[in-house]
Structure formats: structure tokens, C-alpha cells
């Protein structure tokens, strides 16, 4: 509707401009609405970018805050210390900033600006604290990890009084890898099978299984260790070993893997499965050729995150593995140590060298987790049906080959040609 439309509806005439007394009020008369004077185009609000006024306000408030705190510390109150100075100047900064913003903006605008300041500073504080934790560990472990022998030897010769040029952590790396391998050999097939069961055969039984699995994700890791300690070691009389630790890790990561794999499998689009069923594929072929491949990335992420959790957890291993300083490649007998357990045992000793070695073991552990995590990020993070670049290339090459094959062969297939025996096809049984 343009504003030149002649309004002839009498009901509309009853809402004239209040200031305009000349508007005809009699019913039935038509009139042209008076054109409003052009409203100047409003500038687009920018909610994203930092504007120049904002920067000036912030700088001014920061300068005023620091100056006021300095005055407070030197002239008014006997305060001292770096941390109180930073905290108090931050408080002053916020107050001054609010006052400066209030000169130009409404209360709503002030709230918005203060929220921005709050969220920025909270994020900076948390990330700084977390980075600080990692950097602190690396710095304390640096004396140990710069020596090559730390990565290539075991700790047999590295006693509390021996220099850091002797002894290393390779035995703990070996132990960690053996334990997590055994745990994964049990947990991956069982976990995936259970997740497929939960996703593909819904019913009362699977509801029970899902509830129990969900409950077991709450099992504290130390209780996993205590369970294996009480059954495998005390009840059955086995000595602490790598296998016992691996079993404890299995119990801990199995519910984690099942739960995240279950979520991933249920996110597979239904039309993919329906398409497979529509082509005549049987249930198990649908699972093997459609469900699992299309959620491969998510499943890998579930497994790798479970692995990272299993590698990093100390408490189940503390109760079940025993601590050693030498290589043990046999998970069935003898104590076997892992990186978190080595860290925990070494830093409790009253020797600077052992503490440095403990921090070094923590660094090795973090490197291991970082690598696993990077692998998970590279593989995972894609939904069902979304292909990576190389996957896309492969899929295109496949369909080109299929197109070429279709072009070569005439599409008229003799009816008596017999069942098609190519893999992935179910037409033979129909």
C-alpha cells in the first residue's frame, strides 16, 4: 500500500491525526492522508564491531581506574600487593566505564555494555587460568623432558638421587598403551554392538539397558577401581597387574562409549535407512552398509574421547596396577605402571628430581591426550552424510565409474539373467 491510496472506508477516518484539527471528520468524505515529512534514514545499529567511542570510553575508564587505585594504595589505605591492585582497579574500571557510557546511552545500553565487559573478562580469566595450568606443568617438567633419555629409557636407574640425565618414562608409556589397548579391544566391539542394539532394536529390553548404561556413566572412576580390586584381586586372588587395570578402565569407559555412540547412531537421518530398506536391503546389511559408515566420524569421536578419558584417569589404575620403575610387557603378571600413576607416585616423593620427573610424565600424558584429541577433531565433527574432501573425491570417482559402466552396458537386463551376486546387493533372494 502506498500512501497515495485514497481512504474511503469510514472506519478509518475515525482515527485521524490528533494534532491535525483540519481533518474532515464527517463520515463518507474521502481524503488524502497527509504525507509525513521524510524521516532521516536511521543509521544501522552495529551490535558487533567495537566503535571508536567504545574504545575511547574503555581507555579512559581504564586509565581512571588505575589512577584511582594508585591513589588509593599510596595515599588513602595501607594496601599492597599485585593481585589486590588488579582487582580493585578492575572494579574502579567497571564503575567509571558505566558512568561514561551513561552519558550517552540509556540504562538498557549501560547494562548491555556492562554485560559485554563481564563476558569478555570472564572468558579471559578462565582461559588464562587453564593455559596457566598447562604452562605451569610444562615449565616444572622442563628440566626432565629436555633430556632425550627421558623419552627413551625406563626408570630402573633413575632413583631420587640420580641426575635427570638418567632414567625416563618409556616404561609408563608402554604400560599406558598396553592397558588402553586391552581396554579398547574389549570396549569397542562390545560398546558398538550395544549401541547398535540400543539404536536399532527399541523395546522394553533396550530401555532397561539404556537406563542401566546411563546410570553407570555416573559410576565414579575410583569405584571402578575398587570393584576390580575387590573382585579380581581380593576375591579371585590375582595379583595387581596390567590386565586388572585394563579391566577397571574398561568398566569406566564402556558406558561413556556406549552413551555417545548411541546418540550418534540416533542422529543418522531416517531417510538413509529407509532408502536402504526401499532398495530391498536386509536389516543387518542396512546397519553394516548404511548406519555404521554414515556415522563413522561420530563413532570415532566417541571412541577417541573415551580413550582420552581412559588414558588420563589415575584412580582405577591406582588400586589395580601397582607401581613399578621398569619395563613390563606382560599384562598378565607383575605390576605395570601408567603415566598418570607414575606422575602421582613421583610427585609425592620428597626429591626435586623425582618431582621434576613426575611433572615430565604429566607432560608426556598431556601430549598423548593432545594427539588423540587432534585426531578426534580431524576425523570427527562431521554429521552423517557429510564427507571430508578426500571422501568427496572418492565418492565422485565412484559415481563416475558407475556412470561409465552404465554407459557401456545397455540398460535392458534380460529377465533370465539370474540373481545378481555382487556384494551389497540383495536382489538374489527376492
Amino acid at each position, binding site marked *: 500500500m502506498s500512501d497515495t491510496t485514497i481512504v474511503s472506508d469510514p472506519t478509518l477516518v475515525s482515527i485521524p491525526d490528533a494534532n491535525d484539527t483540519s481533518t474532515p471528520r464527517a463520515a463518507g468524505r474521502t481524503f488524502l492522508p497527509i504525507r509525513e515529512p521524510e524521516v532521516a534514514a536511521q543509521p544501522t545499529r552495529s551490535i558487533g564491531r567495537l566503535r571508536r567511542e567504545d574504545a575511547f570510553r574503555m581507555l579512559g575508564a581504564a586509565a581512571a581506574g588505575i589512577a584511582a587505585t594508585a591513589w588509593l594504595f599510596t595515599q588513602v589505605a595501607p594496601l599492597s600487593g599485585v593481585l589486590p591492585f588488579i582487582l580493585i582497579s578492575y572494579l574502579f574500571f567497571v564503575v567509571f566505564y558505566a558512568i561514561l557510557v551513561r552519558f550517552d546511552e540509556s540504562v538498557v545500553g549501560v547494562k548491555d555494555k556492562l554485560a559485554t565487559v563481564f563476558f569478555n573478562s570472564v*572468558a579471559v580469566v578462565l582461559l588464562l587460568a587453564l593455559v596457566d595450568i*598447562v604452562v605451569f606443568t610444562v615449565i616444572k617438567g622442563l628440566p626432565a623432558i629436555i633430556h632425550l633419555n627421558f623419552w627413551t629409557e625406563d626408570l630402573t636407574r633413575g632413583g631420587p638421587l640420580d641426575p635427570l640425565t638418567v632414567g625416563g618414562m618409556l616404561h609408563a608409556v608402554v604400560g599406558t598403551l598396553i592397558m588402553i589397548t586391552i581396554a579398547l579391544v574389549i570396549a569397542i566391539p562390545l560398546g558398538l554392538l550395544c549401541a547398535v542394539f540400543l539404536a536399532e532394536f527399541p523395546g522394553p529390553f533396550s530401555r532397561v539397558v539404556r537406563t542401566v548404561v546411563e546410570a553407570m556413566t555416573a559410576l565414579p572412576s575410583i569405584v571402578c577401581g575398587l570393584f576390580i580390586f575387590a573382585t579380581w584381586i581380593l576375591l579371585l586372588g590375582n595379583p595387581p597387574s596390567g590386565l586388572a587395570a585394563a579391566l577397571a578402565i574398561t568398566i569406566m569407559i564402556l558406558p561413556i562409549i556406549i552413551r555417545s555412540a548411541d546418540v550418534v547412531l540416533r542422529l543418522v537421518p531416517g531417510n538413509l535407512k529407509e532408502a536402504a530398506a526401499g532398495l530391498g536391503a536386509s536389516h543387518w546389511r542396512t546397519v553394516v552398509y548404511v548406519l555404521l559408515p554414515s556415522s563413522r566420524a561420530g563413532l570415532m569421536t566417541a571412541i577417541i574421547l573415551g580413550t582420552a578419558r581412559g588414558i588420563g584417569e589415575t584412580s582405577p589404575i591406582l588400586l589395580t596396577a601397582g607401581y613399578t620403575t621398569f619395563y613390563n610387557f606382560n599384562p598378565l603378571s607383575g605390576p605395570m605402571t601408567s603415566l598418570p600413576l607414575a606422575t602421582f607416585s613421583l610427585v609425592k616423593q620428597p626429591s626435586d628430581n623425582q618431582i621434576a620427573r613426575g611433572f615430565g610424565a604429566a607432560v608426556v600424558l598431556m601430549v598423548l591426550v593432545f594427539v588423540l584429541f587432534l585426531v578426534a577433531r580431524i576425523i570427527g565433527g562431521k554429521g552423517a552424510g557429510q564427507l571430508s574432501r578426500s571422501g568427496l573425491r572418492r565418492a565422485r570417482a565412484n559415481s563416475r565409474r558407475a556412470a561409465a559402466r552404465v554407459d557401456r552396458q545397455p540398460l535392458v537386463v534380460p529377465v533370465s539373467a539370474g540373481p545378481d551376486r555382487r556384494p551389497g546387493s540383495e536382489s538374489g533372494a527376492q
Partner: protein
Amino acid sequence: MTTMTITPPVGDAIEPRKMVIVRGWQDHLFRALSRSGGGLVLALMGLVGLFLIIRGSSAIQVAGWSFLTTQAWDPNSHHFGIAAVLSGTVIIAVIAIVIAVPMALGTATYISEYAPAQLRRLLIGTVDLMAAIPSVVYGLWGFFFLDEAIVPIAQWISTYFGWIPIFDVPGFDPNDPLASTTVFTSSALVAGVVVSMMVAPISASVMREVFAQAPIGEREGALALGSTRWGMIRTVVYPYGLGGIIGGIMLGLGRALGETIGVYLVISQVFTINIHILHSGTNSISSLIALRYGEANPFETSALMAAGLALFIMTMAINFGASIISGRSRSGATAEA
């Protein structure tokens, strides 16, 4: 192998056709295999739970109701209870949550709403990575750095806020310049801060994922109505993500309650209820197990199992509460089929 036999309608009456699905032997095998996989997991998990309950309840029967009220831990003279360790666990977890939740909420909001697009991916990766860092690393930081660094802060709090009972530090006189500050080390506050650092990235990661799903149409609607960015977050993002916020808090709380090594390294264990969070000495159920499993005879192991059972029940209740709450909210409704 799915064959559908369609029975034609009999007579004039239109009845729903009957579909008979005939499955091949592979399908039956597959069904049996996955069913047995589910059954095996159920048996395994059920075994753990049942064993815990049976062994634990035998110890609880010996102790009776005093299991919940006794502070000491001396199973050999049948004088033991979880009053001290349970209260310590809860106090540490509450401190951790009180510190971690504002941090996690703020960081999640920053990453999802304020961070520049180029920085966002990096921040998401960093927070997720921090959530995967082993707890022993946080324990090291707490034991070697925070335990000393927190003393002046704790001293300041107890000097000026000592009139609040939980901040009171008995045995410390702020006016005595020679007073030893060791009463401030190994306290529940130190353990709580360590656990909060551990929990904050986990909660932040859950919250951020939900915030990112807040419907773009409603966000734009709020902005088009003249809302500021904070107004949009308050009226669109937070109500939408409420389930995720609560879920993230609960997940963090579950982890905080069960944390062993990070707490065990920093605290000095006492078997009394200590509500003075700045004062040295506290305890937690998982630290109790880590401390006492080694020299335990079968009955003591049962008693530890009972303590573990109490912890398990608490975490489980929180987990189920979280999944119910986040399942009822808008953001959770689509996630769970």
C-alpha cells in the same frame, strides 16, 4: 532379507492390510547378536552395581543408621560412618560449582555470542581440549602452585569476613603478625578451586553447544525489535538453552563429586566435619577410598564399598536429574529421540 506378503482385502470391507515381514537367517543372527551384546553389557554393568550394593549393604547393616551420622572411620571396631567424608565431598563440590558455573556460563556465552568468528573455532577447540586434560594435571597445579598462592587470599577473606561462620578460621588471630599461615593450606577451598578448574571447561563445552543451537530467527527477531545484544541473550539464548545450562551444571557437579586424584593430592584428610572452608583439613569419599584401600581387610573393603555406593547413588541421582531436566527443555527436546 525382507519379503512382504500383502494379503488382499477380503470381500468388500476395507481392512488394514496385514504386513508379514519374513526375515532371513542373517537378520535373525544379527538380531540375536546385538541382543546378546546388549545383554552382556547389561549383565556386566548390573554385576558391578549389584556387587557394590550387596557388599556395601552388608557393611551398612553392621553400622546401622549411625553409618550416616558417624564421623570417624574405624571399621575394625565397627565404629565408622560417612558423615565427615560425605560432608567434605559435598562442600568441595559446592565450592567448585559456585566458582565454576559463572566462569563456564560466561565463557560459553562469550564464545557463542561475543567472540569474533576467526577466534571462535580456536576457543572452542581450546575449551574442549581443556575438558580432556587428565585430572592429575589439575591436581599437580593445585598441590604445587595453588596451595601456596591461595594463602594471602584466604587470609584476607578470613580477616575481613571471618564473622561469617564458613569463613572463620579457628586458631588464627589476624592481629598476631607471627601467626602461622599453614592453617590456610590443604583446605576445602583449595580442593574446590582445583575441581572448579577441572569442571568449568566441561560445563562450558556443554553450555556452548546448546547456545549455538538457539534459533537464528528468534535472535534476529529480538534484535529487530530493538533489543541490545545482552537483551537478546537474556530473552532468547538463555531461555532456549536453560536445559543445557542446567545439564552442564549437573554434569560438572557429577564430575566434582567423583573426582579423586585432584582432591587427594591437595587436601589433608581429617575425619571430622569441617565447615570452615578456609581451614586446613577436609575429606572426600573418593580420597578415603584411595587412602584406605591398601591395608583393608575384607570387612574394611566392604565398608569402603558402602562409602563408594553412597557416592554412586548421589552422582546417579544428579545425572538422572540432569537428563530429565534437559530432556524437558526446548533445546533438549530434539536431541533425544
